[in-house]
């Protein structure tokens, strides 16, 4: 074996040299450094949480410790509903573990149709289309509805899936100040009257848990001849007489053209959808790439969704408990002196606003070590550069559990200096 031979062998095991200026991964250096600095400070990695066991909609085991879950979007606590689980098991047995295909071709099974029927009943609409996730529902509907030369007008605090739907499509994008009816009016007024326009709103904005003034905004949109899409992901099941969302609560059922929602929050599984009364709505199925070019949901998932949606229609007791829980937590945290995202318990999200990343991480960790999981959120996901601990309530939280939660917040908040 020669020297040269050895060198050659060693070289073949090394990664091929990439000139630093052409290494595509270099753009993440800042991100890597920031994350490393956070981990070096000795905190638990907030983005590496593993639920080792899930005991109920409100309890899990994290790092060997019993933990109360206050950061899921399991608003109506449907994930362990016996009927929902039975429907999923039956579908697994009858239809197998997956569909291996697109909705458009071989991926539509009995329970996809069944889930769409349940949605039409729940929302009282003529049309319903199920997507594989809520993200894809926004991505698909927004990019498909508004084409080249048309406009999408969106709230600045819109969810990433709405922004990405805009980016995927070819329409011109205009954004207005969060929940500002006046700004929406001004921006619509500046656009040429002829092209089609889609105004995209959300019923509940998930970072702070605030509600949109949909009544006024939809009136402004209609005045300017725009169609309206409302994302009701964070309101399904507990806003409005039939639990349809904020738009129903504000009496806008004949005004809103498209409602987008998800199965991954109140419904308790995964998937997304859009419902509409538009007579041509079905055409979306043949034009919408995020609907066509992806595998459809597994049969067990759509079966659990259909059963859960039907149960949500009559879930009055759960709905009342969820609102009572929101009032209890919001009231308790307000009394302790925390700064919250909303003045009143407007939704099932209670966001605690903290000073900076250091305080947010320290408090998040103190809560986790005490046995409470909440979501930490930071810019750019949050509005106005805020650092948040976001709590989302579940109908299955008990008043006693929430008393424990409030006591944990009191202790952790004092420890990090967030409250006196």
């Amino acid at each position, binding site marked *: 074996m020669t020297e040269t031979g050895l060198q050659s062998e060693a070289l073949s095991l090394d990664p091929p040299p990439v000139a630093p200026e052409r290494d595509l991964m270099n753009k993440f250096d800042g991100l890597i450094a920031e994350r490393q600095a956070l981990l070096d400070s000795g905190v638990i990695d907030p983005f590496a949480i593993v639920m080792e066991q899930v005991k109920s909609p409100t309890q899990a085991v994290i790092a060997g410790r019993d933990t109360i879950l206050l950061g899921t979007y399991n608003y109506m606590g449907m994930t362990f509903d016996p009927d929902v689980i039975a429907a999923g098991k039956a579908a697994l047995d009858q239809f197998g573990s997956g569909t291996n295909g697109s909705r458009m071709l071989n991926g539509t099974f009995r329970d996809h149709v069944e889930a769409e029927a349940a949605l039409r009943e729940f929302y009282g609409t003529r049309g319903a289309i199920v997507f594989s996730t809520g993200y894809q529902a926004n991505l698909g509907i927004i990019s498909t509805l508004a084409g080249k030369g048309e*406009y999408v007008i969106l709230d*600045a605090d819109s969810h990433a899936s709405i922004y990405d739907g*805009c980016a995927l499509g070819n329409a*011109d*994008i*205009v*954004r207005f*100040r969060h929940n500002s009816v006046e*700004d929406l009016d*001004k*921006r619509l007024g*500046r*656009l040429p009257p002829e092209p089609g326009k889609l105004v995209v709103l959300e019923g509940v904005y998930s970072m702070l848990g605030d509600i949109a003034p949909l009544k006024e905004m939809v009136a402004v949109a209609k005045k300017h001849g725009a169609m309206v899409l409302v994302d009701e992901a964070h309101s399904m099941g507990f806003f409005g007489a039939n639990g349809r969302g904020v738009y129903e609560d504000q009496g806008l059922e004949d005004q809103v053209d498209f409602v987008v929602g998800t199965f991954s929050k109140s419904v308790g599984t995964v998937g997304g959808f859009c419902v509409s009364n538009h007579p041509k709505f079905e055409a979306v199925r043949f034009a919408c790439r995020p609907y066509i070019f992806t595998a459809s949901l597994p049969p067990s998932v759509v079966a659990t969704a259909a059963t859960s949606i039907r149960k949500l229609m009559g879930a009055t007791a759960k709905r009342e408990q969820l609102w009572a829980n929101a009032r209890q937590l919001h009231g308790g945290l307000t009394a302790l002196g925390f700064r919250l995202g909303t003045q009143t318990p407007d939704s099932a999200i209670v966001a605690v606003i903290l000073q900076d990343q250091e305080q947010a991480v320290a408090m998040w960790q103190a809560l986790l070590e005490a046995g409470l999981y909440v979501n930490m959120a930071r810019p*750019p996901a949050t509005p*106005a*550069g805020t650092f948040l601990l976001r709590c989302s309530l579940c109908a299955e939280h008990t008043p006693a559990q929430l008393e424990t939660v409030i006591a944990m917040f009191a202790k952790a908040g004092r420890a990090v200096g967030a409250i006196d």
Partner: protein
Amino acid sequence: MSDRQQILDTVTAQIEPFNKKKVPVTAATTFQGGLEWDSLTVMDFVAAIEDEFDITITMNMQAEIETVGQLVDAVAKLQG
């Protein structure tokens, strides 16, 4: 004074309240690198420009605008 110069003067005046670091502003100044604005500042500034000239600068256009000079060109074009 040309229209373009007038627009540049107006844009420069609009930059002033957002220019916390007092960066000297020329047509070649970039918003992200030069003025070091974050996305929220950019949004507020764009809104101010839109109100000032009564125009719409879509997000699609914003993505193409990196320097003060490019913004001035865009405003001139939008004013037609």
